[in-house]
C-alpha cells in the first residue's frame, strides 16, 4: 500500500493499548464479514455500542421498567428518577442545564422541532411570547451548502410556510465554507442561522464562534447541528453561545431511537408546542389546553425511556475515556486518512486538505468507479464504509459527483484499520479496470 507519513498523536491522545482495551467492550468487533475481520469505518452513519450501554438498558428492563412521569408506584418512580438523572448528565456533557435538554427520537426530529417554532409562530400559534419566532416575507434564513438534508429540508419547509427567503453560505473549492462572504450573507434581514459544526461529508470543523458572533451582531438566532461534533470533540454549548442545538444518540455509542435538542431556557419557554398530547399539558378540557413548561412541553407521549437510559450509559462511557483524549486520537486517525487518500492515484479527497482542522472522517471520489462499487469491493474485504450521498446531495453536487465513499472513525478504531481501508482503496480502480 501507499504509505502515509507516520502519524503523530498529541500527548493527550488515547494510546493504542487503551484503544485495544476499549475494543473489547464492543463484541461486534469480533465478527467476521465475508471471511474477514470487521473493519468498521461507518460511525458517522451510526456508531457501535459498548456492553455498558446494552447492560444499562437490559438491567432497566429486567428491574425497573415503568412509565415515566405517570402514576406513583415504585417502578414508575424509579424509571422517572433514572430518566431525569440522565437528562442532567447529558446536559452536563453538553455544557448545558437539565431543563434546556428536550428528548427527541433523533437529531432530525430535534431540528424539525426547532424549525416548527418558526412555522407555528408565523401562523399565530403561541401568542405574543412566540413573536421572536415569527417570520415574514423579506426575512431570511441562512444555512450552508454543506448541510445534511435534516438541517436543510426543514428550513425549506419553514421558507415555504412563512415566505422567508432561504440563503446559504457556499462551499469553496478548498472544501471549506466561504466565510469570507459571511458579512454579505448574514445581515439585518437574517433571523436564523442554522449550520453544522462538522459536515458529515467533508469532516472539516467550522469555526462556530465566528458565525455566532456575527449572528449576535444582527440579532439572528443560531441553530447548531452537533451530530458529528458532540460525539467526537469536547463541547460546551453555553460557552459557544448558540441558541439551539441537536444531536442523535446512536452516533455517540448510544442506542437508536433517542436524541436531544438543546435550547436556551427563555427560548423554549417562548416556543409554541410541537407534537401535542400526553405529557405536554397541565390542564385539558374538550376545547382548550394549557401547555406545561419546557422541556416536557415538547416531549409528547411516552418517551423512549430505555433508550434515554442507554444514552446515559454512553455519555458516562465517553466521559470516563475523556473527550479531549478521544478528539486527539481521532485527529490522528483523520490526518492519517486524509494524507493516505491523497497519495492514491485517481482518488480525490472531498473536503479540507490534510492538515486543516478535521475529525476522523474523509470522503473521496474514485475516478471512474461508482461509490457503490467501491463500497462493495471494500465490504468483500470486511471493510464497512458509507457510500452514497450521505443525505447531503448539495455537497456532492457542488463537487461534481452524485455519490462518494466515506470512512469515519471513532475511539475504537486503530491506525491499522485506517491502513486496511487505504490499502483496499488503492486496489479499487484496478479491480474495475479503470486507469493505469
Amino acid at each position, binding site marked *: 500500500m501507499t504509505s502515509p507519513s507516520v502519524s503523530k498523536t498529541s500527548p493527550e491522545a488515547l494510546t493504542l493499548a487503551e484503544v485495544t482495551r476499549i475494543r473489547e467492550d464492543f463484541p461486534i468487533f469480533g465478527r467476521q464479514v465475508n471471511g474477514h475481520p470487521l473493519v468498521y469505518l461507518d460511525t458517522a452513519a451510526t456508531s457501535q455500542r459498548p456492553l455498558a450501554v446494552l447492560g444499562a438498558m437490559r438491567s432497566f428492563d429486567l428491574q425497573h421498567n415503568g412509565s415515566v*412521569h*405517570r*402514576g*406513583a408506584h415504585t417502578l*414508575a*418512580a424509579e424509571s*422517572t*428518577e433514572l430518566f*431525569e438523572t440522565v437528562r442532567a448528565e447529558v446536559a452536563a456533557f453538553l455544557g448545558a442545564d437539565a*431543563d434546556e435538554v428536550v428528548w427527541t427520537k433523533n437529531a432530525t426530529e430535534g431540528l424539525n422541532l426547532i424549525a416548527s417554532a418558526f412555522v407555528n409562530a408565523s401562523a399565530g400559534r403561541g401568542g405574543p411570547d412566540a413573536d421572536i419566532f415569527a417570520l415574514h416575507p423579506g426575512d431570511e434564513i441562512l444555512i450552508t451548502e454543506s448541510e445534511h438534508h435534516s438541517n436543510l429540508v426543514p428550513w425549506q419547509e419553514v421558507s415555504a410556510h412563512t415566505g422567508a427567503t432561504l440563503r446559504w453560505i457556499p462551499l469553496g473549492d478548498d472544501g471549506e465554507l466561504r466565510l469570507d462572504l459571511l458579512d454579505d450573507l448574514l445581515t439585518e434581514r437574517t433571523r436564523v442561522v442554522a449550520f453544522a459544526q462538522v459536515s458529515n461529508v467533508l469532516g472539516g470543523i467550522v469555526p462556530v464562534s465566528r458565525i455566532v458572533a456575527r449572528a449576535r451582531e444582527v440579532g439572528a438566532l443560531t441553530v447548531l447541528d452537533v451530530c458529528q461534533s458532540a460525539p467526537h470533540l469536547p463541547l460546551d454549548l453555553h460557552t459557544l453561545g448558540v441558541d439551539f442545538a441537536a444531536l442523535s444518540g446512536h452516533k455517540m455509542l448510544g442506542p437508536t431511537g433517542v436524541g436531544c435538542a438543546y435550547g436556551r431556557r427563555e427560548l423554549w419557554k417562548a416556543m409554541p408546542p410541537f407534537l401535542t398530547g400526553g405529557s405536554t*399539558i*397541565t*390542564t385539558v378540557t374538550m376545547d382548550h389546553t*394549557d401547555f*406545561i*413548561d419546557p422541556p*416536557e412541553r415538547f416531549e409528547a407521549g411516552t418517551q423512549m425511556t430505555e433508550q434515554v437510559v442507554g444514552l446515559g450509559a454512553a455519555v458516562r462511557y465517553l466521559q470516563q475515556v475523556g473527550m479531549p483524549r478521544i478528539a486527539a486520537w481521532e485527529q490522528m486517525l483523520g490526518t492519517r486518512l486524509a494524507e493516505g487518500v491523497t497519495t492514491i492515484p485517481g482518488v480525490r479527497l472531498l473536503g479540507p486538505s490534510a492538515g486543516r482542522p478535521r475529525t476522523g472522517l474523509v470522503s473521496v471520489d474514485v475516478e471512474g468507479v461508482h461509490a457503490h462499487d467501491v463500497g462493495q469491493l471494500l465490504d468483500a474485504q470486511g471493510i464497512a464504509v458509507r457510500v452514497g450521498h450521505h443525505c447531503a446531495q448539495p455537497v456532492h453536487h457542488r463537487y461534481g459527483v452524485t455519490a462518494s465513499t466515506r470512512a469515519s472513525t471513532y475511539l475504537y478504531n486503530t491506525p491499522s484499520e485506517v491502513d486496511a481501508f487505504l490499502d483496499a482503496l488503492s486496489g479499487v480502480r484496478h479491480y474495475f479496470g479503470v486507469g493505469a
Partner: protein
Amino acid sequence: MSNALEDLYQTIILEQAKARTGEGIEEHSDGSSHQVNPTCGDEITVQVDLDGDRVSALRWEGDGCTISMASASILSELAVGWDIDTARDRITTFRTVMRSRGAAELPEEEFEDGIALNGVSRFIMRVKCAMMSWVAFEDALAQALATGASHATGTTSAGVSHC
C-alpha cells in the same frame, strides 16, 4: 405494610389533611397564585395578604391528595407572621429538603408540625404534592410585592422545574 409508608402518612399528616387549616379564599388579596400539578391534575389557589413586610394572612382553596392538603394546611399555620425574608428562607429550606431524597430534614424549631412532611422526600413522585402550595405561596408573595395590593392571579404550573 412497610415502615416507609408510615413515614409518609404520619398521624399529623392525616389529621392536617382533614383539618385543612386556612381553607377558603376571598375575592380580594394582595397576591394570589393558582398552581396545577400536571401529573395528577390537582390544583390549588393560594392568597396572601401583607401587613408591611409581614404575612398577615394566608388562605387557600384546592383539592388534592392527603400530602398536598396537609402541606397547605401546615403552611397556613406556619406562614402568618413571617416577614418576607423569613418566608423566602423557609420556602428555600422546604424545597431543598423535599428534593433531597431523604438526605435532609426540616428543622423542627422552624417548621413545627411541618417536620411530619420529612418522609415525603423519599417518595419522588409525591414531592410535587408537598410543594404545590409552597410554590403557589412563593408566587403569590412575588405578586403581592410586584403589584403592591392587587387582585392579580397568576397561573403557572407546578412543573418539575418549579418544584
